[in-house]
């Protein structure tokens, strides 16, 4: 069966799974729920693979992206937003990542959530998320992409607040939702602007129009339409992908179950921003200013989040900030025009960050819900598999060859170094962030697994997780080892297969060959490795021996409290809003005007009734007379043209 | 003579006819009472009236005189208007109801053709029903007006009974109307004419030229309902002497009572005539028109009867009887002979002869029933009317219309 021709199957399957589980799952045993959830996701993964295969054949035949409109969704005037699905090389990468990683995490969840309440609810949400994510990825126009965009936002809200009885979880969900609203607002404005400019929101149309030679590249520092549009879109990306200054929701999102953190808040959803930027690279390349902003924001975020990550004691918080920082890397790549590198890092990051989160989850599982690294230690003996997997992930993220992140991060830094106006600075900061990254990751490793145990043996019974959890871990570990090898030949003068693969989308951009570049790249990668090693050494010096939680003051205190950004927002944004809502909107507008109007109407009616009531004497004869009065009025109206000469002595 | 008639006929003839009719009908009423008393007496193995005149033949006269001479007391606390109005209304309506009944085919005297009856209305049946419908007021008002609980109950009963049985009465006629396709009684009778004689009457309903169907069901329903309408036994609850003294006319005496009395018998005659017209072919002879010999039947009956009366009268005990009866016999004989001799008069008499013969038979049936049947209980009356008579007559309507539709095509 040609999957490509009816591509809608791929997103539909998870939706069905979600619907079935959501509607009937409550009654069913865990086994059935599992089979439904895993079945739908797995089949859709297989479909995705088949679709990719067919697409590659299609591309060989006629060199263009595959687009098919399935049905009209909104048609108003000259505006059309259809349910159109698109498949090109960029989509292929995202599709495989989403379905593949998503499937693995589903498997993992069956083990992790085994003892949780609302088992079916969890899987229903998870499948729903898969559906929306796939819509987002496959969308062929901004509107449909926005549907997926909002949908994943919803699912993230639902899943963060999965333990909705826990106030912190509920608040975190709300926070994520509200912060995202800000970004979405920007995104919508951007869409409107694009529609106003190009009279369409279909990717093909917009990009074709933007790619025309007569569309001038707006020079640096000039804010033309495209620049503003790109910046607005980037605001959306900032919100969704937790960049400065809207990153605050992501760390709190760790309140959700760990698989959720792995899937949504590390592997897939948060990278939607990157995907969106890469998807609209045509626009961005025409707006260098926007690109520059993207690069700076990404770079800054990478460093900033890494610094916070240094001192966190909650294992998931560390990973969360690490995620923010890695996303920063991706945006840095996009900002310097190395979209391919960005997507490459997106993929590898999906592998190893999912791996890390799942391992962390496994650790937490083993520790019976304990998340504070200061209460762990010496776990390496007890849970060896988890330890090894986590070690793989750490090495991968730290950027040691031949692990995945080495290649991706390396290419990003290389691109940054090569980019004009201030590329060196970006490179420097990026490098520094890399050092910090490897530091906090190995700190995590040592605090968690090395040293002697800092937990009470009798309270916590440490045990290795079941195969349903360790299995995905191993697969992901393998992937995060090999995931980067597409680019392996590039080191030895060969060509970067990944960039090659994406070149139909991004054009054969940054595979800049040449001997000089070659040597430079080698040099830079050696530097990067050295930086990672530095981080490793410092972490070893500080944490390999027995350590105790020290009192935090000074810089440490500042970092530990995340630069007081939350407090700042609370003071600057939240409190004024609260005050406004309470004293103006609620007490004046709502209570005063709206309720006043409603109650006023009611009271008026009551008052009128009170006076009119006296005509209702209950005496039938009075009623009869009233009937007569009414009849007289009616007849008067009807007969008026006949009567008024009679009444006013007119002559017929 | 004839030109005068041609000129003022429209004015003179009706007056004459009304005068004759009233005279005839009042006499008929009077002797109907006599007949009733006699017949019932014989049914009950009694003699009945036989003091006043031979075989009590002068009894009605005596009764009339008695009614006129009696004192007319008025009870206290009566509703005067109603009390006085009721008997007049009853009698008036009863007499009016006769005005639309054709007693025979159109006749021509002295070259002036007129219908054998007072008025010839083309909706005479409806008029008749209208009048009978109003008939209830007499009784109801009498019951109400005379300020007496028995009367009131009588009035109540009669009004309820009237309403209940009027429906059945009307519906049972619909079949006949469907056959005749006309409201005029005259046409209804003429429709029943056929060379089959009595077989083409509505009760048998065998006729070739137009769609027809036997109205036996309708006939029975009509007869029962008619008895109820005239408050006769077994439906005489308004005046059930064993329960309500005399029902609605308990408080009436002398002429007022007489009016009720006459009214009742007149309406009996009217209803019988209607019955005859609707189902038994009115004035039509039961024999096919081709049997001209049967035209002499009147005289064939009258002459022997007269002779027997004459012979029997001569042997009567009292002198008066020995004077009256032979005289009567002689009259009969001469009448029969006269008819036998003048064929024109004979032809003229055919219709009325058969008509009154049939009506007489029906009246006799009335009396016979009174002598035979016990009275209904009230709830039985209502149940019978609503749960049996009405459905049956409706079924008759449906059946008849279906059959006629089928026959038409």
């Amino acid at each position, binding site marked *: 069966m040609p999957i490509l021709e009816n591509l809608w199957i791929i997103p539909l399957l998870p939706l069905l799974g979600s619907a079935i589980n959501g509607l009937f799952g409550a009654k069913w045993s865990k086994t059935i729920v599992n089979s439904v959830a895993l079945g739908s996701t797995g089949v859709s993964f297989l479909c995705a693979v088949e679709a990719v295969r067919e697409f590659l054949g299609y591309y060989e035949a006629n060199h263009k992206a595959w687009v098919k409109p399935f049905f009209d969704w909104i048609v108003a005037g000259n505006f059309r937003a259809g349910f159109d699905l698109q498949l090109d090389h960029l989509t292929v990468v995202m599709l495989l990542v989403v379905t593949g990683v998503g499937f693995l995490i589903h498997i993992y969840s069956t083990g992790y959530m085994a003892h949780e309440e609302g088992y079916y609810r969890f899987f229903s949400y998870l499948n729903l998320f898969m559906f929306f994510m796939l819509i987002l990825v496959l969308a062929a126009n901004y509107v449909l992409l926005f549907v997926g965009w909002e949908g994943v936002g919803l699912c993230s809200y639902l899943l963060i607040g999965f333990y909705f009885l826990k106030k912190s979880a509920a608040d975190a969900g709300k926070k994520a939702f509200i912060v995202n609203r800000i970004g979405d607002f920007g995104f919508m404005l951007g869409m409107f602007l694009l529609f106003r400019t190009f009279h369409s929101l279909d990717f093909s149309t917009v990009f074709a129009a933007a790619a025309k030679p007569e569309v001038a590249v707006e020079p640096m520092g000039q804010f033309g339409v495209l620049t503003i549009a790109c910046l607005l879109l980037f605001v959306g990306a900032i919100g969704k992908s937790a960049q400065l200054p809207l990153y605050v929701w992501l760390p709190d999102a760790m309140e959700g179950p760990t698989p959720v953190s792995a899937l949504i808040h590390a592997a897939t959803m948060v990278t939607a921003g990157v995907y969106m930027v890469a998807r609209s690279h045509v626009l961005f390349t025409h707006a260098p200013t926007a690109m520059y902003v993207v690069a700076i924001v990404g770079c800054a975020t990478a460093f900033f989040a890494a610094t916070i990550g240094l001192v966190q004691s909650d294992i998931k918080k560390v990973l969360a900030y690490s995620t923010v920082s890695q996303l920063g890397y991706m945006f840095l790549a996009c900002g310097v025009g190395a979209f391919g590198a960005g997507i490459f890092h997106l993929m590898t990051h999906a592998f190893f960050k999912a791996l890390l989160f799942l391992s962390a989850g496994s650790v937490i599982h083993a520790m019976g819900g304990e998340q504070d690294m200061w209460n762990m230690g010496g776990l390496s003996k007890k849970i060896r598999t988890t330890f090894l997997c986590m070690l793989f992930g750490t090495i991968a993220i730290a950027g040691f060859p031949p692990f995945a992140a080495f290649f991706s991060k390396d290419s990003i830094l290389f691109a940054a170094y090569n980019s004009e106006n201030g590329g060196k600075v970006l490179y420097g900061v990026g490098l520094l962030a890399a050092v910090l990254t490897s530091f906090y990751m190995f700190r995590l490793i040592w605090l968690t697994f090395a040293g002697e145990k800092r937990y009470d043996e009798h309270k916590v019974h440490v045990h290795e997780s079941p195969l349903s959890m360790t299995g995905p871990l191993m697969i992901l570990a393998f992937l995060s080892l090999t995931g980067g090898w597409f680019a392996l030949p590039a080191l030895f003068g060969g060509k970067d297969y990944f960039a090659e693969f994406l070149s139909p989308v991004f054009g054969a951009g940054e595979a800049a060959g040449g001997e000089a570049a070659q040597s430079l790249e080698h040099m830079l990668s050696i530097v990067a490795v050295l930086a990672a090693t530095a981080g490793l050494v410092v972490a070893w010096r500080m944490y390999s021996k027995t350590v105790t939680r020290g009192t935090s003051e000074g810089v440490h205190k500042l970092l530990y409290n995340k630069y007081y950004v939350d407090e700042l927002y609370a003071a600057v944004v939240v409190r004024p809003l609260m005050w406004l809502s309470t004293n103006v909107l609620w007490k004046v507008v709502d209570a005063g005007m709206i309720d006043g109007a409603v109650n006023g109407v009611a009271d008026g009616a009551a008052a009128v009734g009170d006076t009119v009531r006296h005509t209702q004497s209950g005496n039938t004869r009075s009623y009869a*007379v009233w009937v*007569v009065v009414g009849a007289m009025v009616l007849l008067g109206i009807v007969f008026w043209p006949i009567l008024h000469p009679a009444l006013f002595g007119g002559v017929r | 003579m004839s030109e005068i008639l041609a000129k003022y006929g429209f004015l003179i003839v009706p007056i004459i006819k009304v005068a004759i009719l009233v005279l005839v009908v009042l006499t008929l009423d009077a002797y109907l009472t006599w007949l009733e008393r006699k017949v019932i007496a014989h049914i009950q193995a009694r003699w009945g009236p036989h003091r006043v005149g031979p075989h009590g033949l002068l009894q009605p006269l005596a009764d009339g005189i008695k009614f006129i001479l009696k004192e007319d007391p008025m009870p206290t606390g009566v509703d005067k208007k109603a009390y006085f*109005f009721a008997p007049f209304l009853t009698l008036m309506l009863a007499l009016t109801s006769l005005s639309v009944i054709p007693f025979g085919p159109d006749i021509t005297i002295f070259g002036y053709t007129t219908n054998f009856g007072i008025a010839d209305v083309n909706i005479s049946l409806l008029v008749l029903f209208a009048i009978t419908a109003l008939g209830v007021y007499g009784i*109801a*008002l009498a019951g109400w007006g005379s300020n007496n609980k028995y009367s009131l109950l009588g009035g109540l009963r009669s009004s309820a009974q009237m309403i209940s049985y009027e429906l059945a009465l009307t519906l049972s006629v619909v079949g006949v109307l469907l056959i005749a396709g006309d409201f005029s009684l005259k046409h209804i009778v003429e429709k029943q004419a056929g060379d089959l004689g009595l077989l083409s009457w509505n009760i048998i309903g065998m006729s070739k030229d137009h769609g027809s169907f036997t109205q036996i069901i309708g006939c029975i329903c009509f007869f029962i309902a008619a008895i109820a309408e005239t408050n006769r036994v077994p439906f005489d609850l308004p005046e059930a002497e064993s329960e309500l003294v005399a029902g609605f006319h308990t408080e009436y005496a002398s002429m007022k009572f007489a009016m009720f009395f006459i009214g009742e018998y007149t309406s009996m005659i009217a209803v019988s005539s209607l019955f005859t017209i609707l189902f038994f072919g009115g004035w039509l002879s039961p024999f096919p028109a081709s049997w001209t010999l049967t035209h002499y039947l009147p005289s064939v009956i009258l002459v022997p009867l007269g002779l027997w009366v004459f012979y029997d009268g001569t042997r009567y005990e009292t002198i008066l009887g020995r004077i009256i009866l032979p005289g009567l016999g002689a009259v009969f004989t001469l009448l029969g002979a006269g008819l036998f001799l003048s064929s024109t008069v004979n032809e003229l008499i055919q219709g009325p002869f058969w008509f009154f013969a049939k009506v007489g038979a029906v009246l006799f049936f009335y009396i016979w029933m009174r002598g035979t049947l016990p009275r209904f209980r009230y709830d039985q009356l209502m149940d019978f009317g609503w749960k049996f008579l009405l459905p049956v007559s409706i079924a008759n309507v449906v059946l008849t219309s279906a059959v006629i539709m089928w026959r038409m095509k």
Partner: protein
Amino acid sequence: MISGVLVIFFVLAALAVFGAVSLILQSHPIHSALSLILVMVSLAGLYLLMGAEFIAAVQIIVYGGAVMVLFIFVIMLLNAGVEERTNFSKMATFGGVPLALALGGIIAAAIARSSGQLPAPTAAAQGALTSTRELSKLLFSEFVYPFELTSFLILVAILGAIVLAQREN
């Protein structure tokens, strides 16, 4: 010159109006009922005058023979006495009579003013009216659905009356 028909009309009209007035003036319901019967009978006479003989007959049979009998039956059943002239309703006491007269006045005035527009009854019209057959044709062809509806209405009314009249048990 006043034709005989006109004379009859005026006699019947006078009877009708007299009946209506006496319906109001009589204090006893049964006398009011009798007055109403008078009105109805004279109306039937008027219908005959207009050549609508079937309507006339139906008027007497249904109204005179059924409806009013029902009224009188109920009056007897409830043994209604002379009505008591209470005046609890100020509205009716002061406003009622003039208003009612005014209403009648309005209609009468409207008719009087517009009587010019009315087509004078033609002989043809008279002829058309006399035929009961035509009436029935119309009733069962053009107005057959209303006719069926009315029959259904009657059925409902019968059921309603039964339900109302039977005692609770």
